[in-house]
């Protein structure tokens, strides 16, 4: 079915960014516009999700150019779920930014760029054209590069050089892959490619292209062996920015992997095994990396890598159940990782350091806040009935059904490593008796902040924790969504029919 309005999540973010640019010098106004815009964006995302959930897949042909030739935007359950999660995380981070980001950064256009980043994310989730996907990736990279370097501190610049180098390399590989694919199939529309790829005689070259896509998206989603840029850069910007990076940026890569490897290339035995092994090593590398970190944000960054492995493992097993499990994990991971980085920002504001050796006694001094922070920490480990538990159950069950015992072993190992890291953070940060640190002059501590700013930092964590609790306690609803997405991805005929089947007669006048 065609629906002109499914592009609104993208357009509205652009609109918000433009309005914010008109208020370039007015910092307080920017905060309120950003928050208001994020609330409306959440409303649009909820509308999109409910429309798609009730009415099936919707498409929009940009500029009225018909499907294989023009750029198609497709809203199926997978993409609209991710748009919804982007809106939720976006709202949380926007409110948190209003409370915590320094004026010096806001002055250089923090909020407009933030909304352009969200626009890029929404665009990447909604597009049905592989080259357009590349364009959205570029928008995401450019905005994230600005956000990463904004403020110009030395570690920020160092981190962003690694970040940009690796991401540009990934873009080059991605673009090369698109070029080869276009040369082979003569089309860039993903639904059209899905039909044309099996008919190509030179299947060897198709497999090589698939591997190129795997490398390109793999670098972007930080899988083994090219994950090292992530822990090197994600701990450098302000916590609000790390939150949106940690929650959503690597997940775009995962989204693209799922989309491309279910719709365009169906993995053969070699590619499937390759993905599984990559997943296994990603879990191992991330988990072991997190063990030795003393900087809490670095530990969380390595945990991102570790948990990307879980999702890739779902893709490696490649059954409907495994994909559904991986999707559930994706939904859980976006909210929890965003929340964790916000929590790390909160801890920094209270303690004045990110190094967990010097922290301590948080539970004694801020008991209610500590209980709040426990929700994302424990659901990351997957303590039942919190949200991480259900996702892992599905993945492990899918592994047993296909006898992928190595993958199961590593998922369990990864969970134990996560448990160990989180338990250590809990013991060091919250329970240990803290040393008295000399007060730093340039840090504005939490208790020094005004009431409104304190609430602006607490409310997003409450919001995301509530979502996490809902994912855990209302798991049957999320499972229903994940199963529908799993079924959609494994059988793309509905998607193809929605894109190519409708010949809507709206020609340009």
């Amino acid at each position, binding site marked *: 079915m065609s629906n002109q309005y499914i592009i609104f999540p993208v357009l509205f973010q652009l609109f918000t960014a433009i309005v914010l640019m*008109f208020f*370039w010098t007015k910092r307080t106004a920017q905060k309120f516009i950003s928050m208001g815009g994020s609330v409306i964006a959440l409303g649009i995302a909820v509308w999109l999700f409910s429309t798609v959930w009730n009415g099936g897949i919707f498409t929009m042909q*940009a500029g*009225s150019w018909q499907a294989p030739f023009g750029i198609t935007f497709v809203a199926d359950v997978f993409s609209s779920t991710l748009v919804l999660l982007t809106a939720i995380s976006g709202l949380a981070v926007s409110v948190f930014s209003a409370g915590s980001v320094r004026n010096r950064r806001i002055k250089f256009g923090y909020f407009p760029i933030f909304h352009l980043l969200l626009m890029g994310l929404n665009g990447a989730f909604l597009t049905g054209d592989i080259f357009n996907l590349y364009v959205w990736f570029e928008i995401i990279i450019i905005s994230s590069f600005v956000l990463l370097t904004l403020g110009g501190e030395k570690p920020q610049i160092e981190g962003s050089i690694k970040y940009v180098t690796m991401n540009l390399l990934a873009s080059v590989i991605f673009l090369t892959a698109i070029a080869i694919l276009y040369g082979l199939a003569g089309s860039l529309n993903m639904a059209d490619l899905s039909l044309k790829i099996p008919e190509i005689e030179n299947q060897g070259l198709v497999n090589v292209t698939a591997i190129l896509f795997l490398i390109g998206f793999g670098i972007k989603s930080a899988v083994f062996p090219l994950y090292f840029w992530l822990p090197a850069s994600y701990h450098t910007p302000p916590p609000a920015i790390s939150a949106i990076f940690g929650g959503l940026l690597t997940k775009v890569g995962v989204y693209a992997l799922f989309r491309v490897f279910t719709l365009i290339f169906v993995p053969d035995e070699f590619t499937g095994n390759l993905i599984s092994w990559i997943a296994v090593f990603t879990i191992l590398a991330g988990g072991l990396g997190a063990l030795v970190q003393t900087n809490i944000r670095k530990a969380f960054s390595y945990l991102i890598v570790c948990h990307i492995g879980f999702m890739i493992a779902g893709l490696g097993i490649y059954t409907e159940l495994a994909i559904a499990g991986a999707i559930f994990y994706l939904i859980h991971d976006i909210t929890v990782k965003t929340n964790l980085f916000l929590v790390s920002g909160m801890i920094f504001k209270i303690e004045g350091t990110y190094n967990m050796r010097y922290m301590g006694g948080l539970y004694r001094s801020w008991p209610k806040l500590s209980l709040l922070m426990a929700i994302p920490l424990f659901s990351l480990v997957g303590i039942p009935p919190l949200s991480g538990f259900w996702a892992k159950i599905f993945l492990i069950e899918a592994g047993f059904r296909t006898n992928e015992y190595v993958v199961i072993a590593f998922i369990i190992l990864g969970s134990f490593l996560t448990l160990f890291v989180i338990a250590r953070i809990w013991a060091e940060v919250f329970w240990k008796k803290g040393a008295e640190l000399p007060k730093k002059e340039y840090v504005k501590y939490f208790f020094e902040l005004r009431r409104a700013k304190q609430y602006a930092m607490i409310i997003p964590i409450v919001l995301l924790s509530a979502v996490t609790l809902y994912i855990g306690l209302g798991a049957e609803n999320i499972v229903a969504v994940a199963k529908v997405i799993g079924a959609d991805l494994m059988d793309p005929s509905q998607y193809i029919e929605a894109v190519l089947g409708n010949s809507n007669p*709206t020609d*340009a006048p």
Partner: protein
Amino acid sequence: MKTIIFKTASTYLLPILLLFSVFILLRGHYLPGGGFVGGLIASIAYVLHSFANGLDRTKDVIKFHPGFLMPVGLSLSLLSGMAPLLHELPFMTGLWAHDPVPVLGNIGSALFFDIGVYLVVVGVVLTIIFTISESI
């Protein structure tokens, strides 16, 4: 580079180059040209003027901060893209007036999109170049 020849030439080059940029902008839909190139040429006109007469004089000519053109151009492009939605057509569908206007030719929503691009390019390039030459 403040030679008298350059200075005198730049006073004439500024309007000519600006006119040329508008020409390039307008021929853009079917022939080589368009908002991006036109915007670059327009900003080159001002850059040339600033080389010859100094940055302050050029700023006096422009009268407002060029960065202001960015949101203006972006909103023009966004609106021209969204205009088809009023007619229940998909985003970015070209809407065309029935009768061609003399000199300009056919007018459509694509022209306004291109004008938006033109303004954004002028705004971005001038902001970058002015900021860099101020900090030297």
